[in-house]
């Protein structure tokens, strides 16, 4: 704390200035959070396999992949919305709407080519997402409330539309149902679609301006506005993409099960949020990756598949998932506190 260095000439490229606090010390942004969840998945699968090798039979692997598909696609979309410090509780209803819409289109227009119908399912989801996003950005009501409302509205609409009916596998073209069965190297096609979604969205979020701006909005909304970021448009985009992915999840669900009614996806929204949180996406916005959210979804569905093999009573399943969420949040707190200490330079806290 001396004033002696102030006598230097005001030449811009000054000699190594007094090193500011926190310079040069901490390393890059923490990336190991996702790795931790991934390790948990690997450990769980390995342990379960050792316990009962049947867990990783051809059929077992297929089931694991298919089970994780729908939830991870939904988790990727939800991660986008969470990163902008919003939330979408209507995804379960949107997925149901898209699933029933897909089935109904097959019944109403048997001649329609399968890809067109699938695109229509995604479009239904995107439209529902657009509605959510428009309400959140224009009416300025918290997303939690808006999407809680649309969750019931979309579901109610679905019930009215279906009026108790269901669409069965026989009504759908075999080319569509085949999608749920074929695979490459033992990986079912829907799972490949999910992997592609994770890769594409994940890459966009880290490498495209629009993606980084979503992080910025979630991190500090006021600063984002002052930085000239089109916050409304970015949040709207997040909701539309999330809706479209919920639509895709509905289509994949229909392809896998073949039978859909108006209750598809009920209760899914909380599982999705849980998967994202377990995967390291912060509810407070700005933190986490879609990779993490997807791995979180895989962890949750793997636990669901593994518990019966460990002969754990099904009643305990929800408690296990709950404990997992609490553990994940606790871990985040510990990591955040440690990180904060490191970033501040280990010295005294506060000023």
């Amino acid at each position: 704390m001396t004033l002696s260095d102030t006598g230097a000439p005001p030449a811009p490229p000054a000699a190594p200035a007094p090193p500011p606090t926190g310079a040069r010390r901490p390393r890059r942004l923490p990336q190991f959070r996702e790795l931790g969840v991934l390790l948990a998945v690997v450990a769980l699968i390995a342990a379960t396999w050792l316990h009962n090798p049947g867990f990783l039979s051809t059929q077992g692997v297929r089931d694991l992949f298919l089970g994780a598909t729908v939830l991870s696609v939904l988790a990727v979309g939800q991660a986008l919305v969470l990163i902008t410090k919003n939330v979408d509780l209507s995804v379960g209803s949107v997925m149901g709407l898209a699933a029933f819409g897909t089935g109904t289109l097959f019944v109403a227009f048997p001649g329609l080519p399968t890809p067109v119908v699938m695109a229509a399912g995604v479009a239904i989801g995107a439209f529902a997402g657009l509605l959510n996003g428009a309400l959140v950005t224009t009416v300025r009501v918290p997303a939690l409330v808006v999407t809680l409302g649309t969750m019931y509205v979309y579901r109610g609409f679905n019930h009215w539309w279906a009026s108790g009916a269901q669409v069965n596998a026989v009504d759908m073209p075999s080319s569509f149902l085949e999608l749920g069965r074929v695979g490459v190297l033992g990986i079912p096609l829907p799972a490949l679609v999910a992997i592609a979604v994770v890769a594409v969205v994940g890459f966009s979020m880290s490498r495209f301006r629009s993606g980084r701006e979503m992080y910025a909005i979630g991190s500090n909304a006021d600063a984002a506005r002052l930085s000239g970021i089109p916050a409304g448009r970015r949040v709207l985009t997040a909701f539309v993409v999330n809706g479209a992915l919920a639509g895709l999840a509905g289509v994949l669900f229909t392809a896998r099960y073949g039978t859909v009614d108006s209750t598809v996806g009920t209760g899914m929204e909380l599982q999705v949020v849980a998967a994202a949180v377990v995967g390291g996406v912060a509810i407070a916005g700005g933190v986490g990756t879609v990779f993490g959210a997807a791995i979180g979804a895989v962890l949750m569905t793997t636990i669901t598949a593994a518990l019966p093999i460990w002969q754990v009573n099904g009643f305990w399943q929800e408690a296990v998932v709950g404990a997992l969420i609490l553990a994940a949040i606790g871990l985040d707190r510990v990591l955040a506190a440690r990180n904060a200490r490191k970033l501040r330079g280990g010295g005294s806290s506060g000023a």
Partner: protein
Amino acid sequence: MAQQAAQAPPLALVDVTKSFGSVKALRGLSLELRAGEIHALVGENGAGKSTLVKTIAGVHRPDTGQVLVDGRAAEFHAPADSQRAGVAVIYQEPTLFPDLSVAENIYVGRQPCTRFGTIDRAHMRRRTREAFARLGVEIDPDRPARGLSIADQQLIEIAKAITREARVLIMDEPTAALSGVEAERLFKVARSLRDSGAALLFISHRFDEVFSLCDRITVVRDGAFVSCDPTADLDVDTVVRRMVGRDVSDLFPKTETTPGDTLLEVEGLTRAGAFSDVSFTVRAGEIVALAGLVGAGRSEVVRAVFGVDRYDSGTVRAHGEPLAPGRVKAAMDAGMALVPEDRRQQGLVMEASIQRNATSTRRRALSRFGWLASRAERDSARHWGERLRLKFGALGDTVGTLSGGNQQKVVLAKWLSTEPRVLFVDEPTRGIDVGTKSEVHRLLSELAGEGLAIVMVSSELPEVLGMADRVLVMHEGRVTAELDRSEATEESVMYAATGQRTQEAA
């Protein structure tokens, strides 16, 4: 119709007015920022400086008047428009994204892209390093912004401006939270930017900085232009007189009182990381000011004494009796009251009515058989409303509809109605207009005259010097000086607040 585009100032405001509801924040203000010049803007808090900054930044649109860029009228609809015109603003509170990396913070919203439309991270990192080299600092471009000191955060804001090749740089009280060395480093950067042809606007309350750094000084008062002169033609007294617009004694109607019994004794109060070894006493009828820079630990001390926060060691005695730590109820029972720093967050329930807010400290006293009696509530609120000259529509209106000054009066009413013996006020006049301000001052003076002991935390030097019988100055959590009314001057307080020792502030 300025046709001499070459000499036209990069940015000018002409006759700008801006109102928020009934409050006129700017009334016909004009300002001209020239290339290669550091221009100071001084004025009291609430004089409209922040509104002016936000108008230049494109956050607010002027009601009337024009913003000229290179002599041509420009319309800033959003911050992006202002940025495109080459304006960069460094706000009082840095506006960084804690979760993004330093390099991303600098390039947010305008990241360099590769041919494929992806962000060119290598380029971004290199340019960030270059900017830091030019500023003479070393910050890892890849570290997250979370955890950086205020000084480093400000350097990042400046790096942002440099990489944007901003021609106009606005700095809104950038030194408020900086140490002497950090501030000097900032000035070095500011001078080198000026020498390379940028136009700078520097807003500060510290006159030594203004006079040593700036080429011209514009004074504003109550949202209106007062004067603009080269620094060489001015001295501190002239500027202060123009800022205040009247003699300081009018503004701070201090009534002389003879202090009575000691009501509050604080000894060796310490909380690790916030403050240490703070001791002081307050007597009846006395106004003791806690002065210092933002972040010096003043509010923390007051909150600890009042029992909102814990403290590690030390004692607090009220009327000679030890006070239980960490219990607000005990402090209230001992006749203490705290008017907090942030009235919107901590002082009021914005959605509730005036009368509900004004009586919320006395719910028990005003209720019968557990039911809150509306009539008692209303009578009490009306009594204090009249006493404080509160301007309102109806007592049932929500507090959110009142102006800042009147909101502050409601908070005061809320605590005065408990008939305290010791009153803590934290930044009692922040963000309220000059008229209401002097009403608040008169009230505090009156209350002290009636024997109330008042502890006032204030960042406004004129307020401290005008109101206090004694001034305690804090710096980085320690009391660095205790000055009597006669010893307290702008210089002696500022010296102690920045942690520099002078002979009298030992």
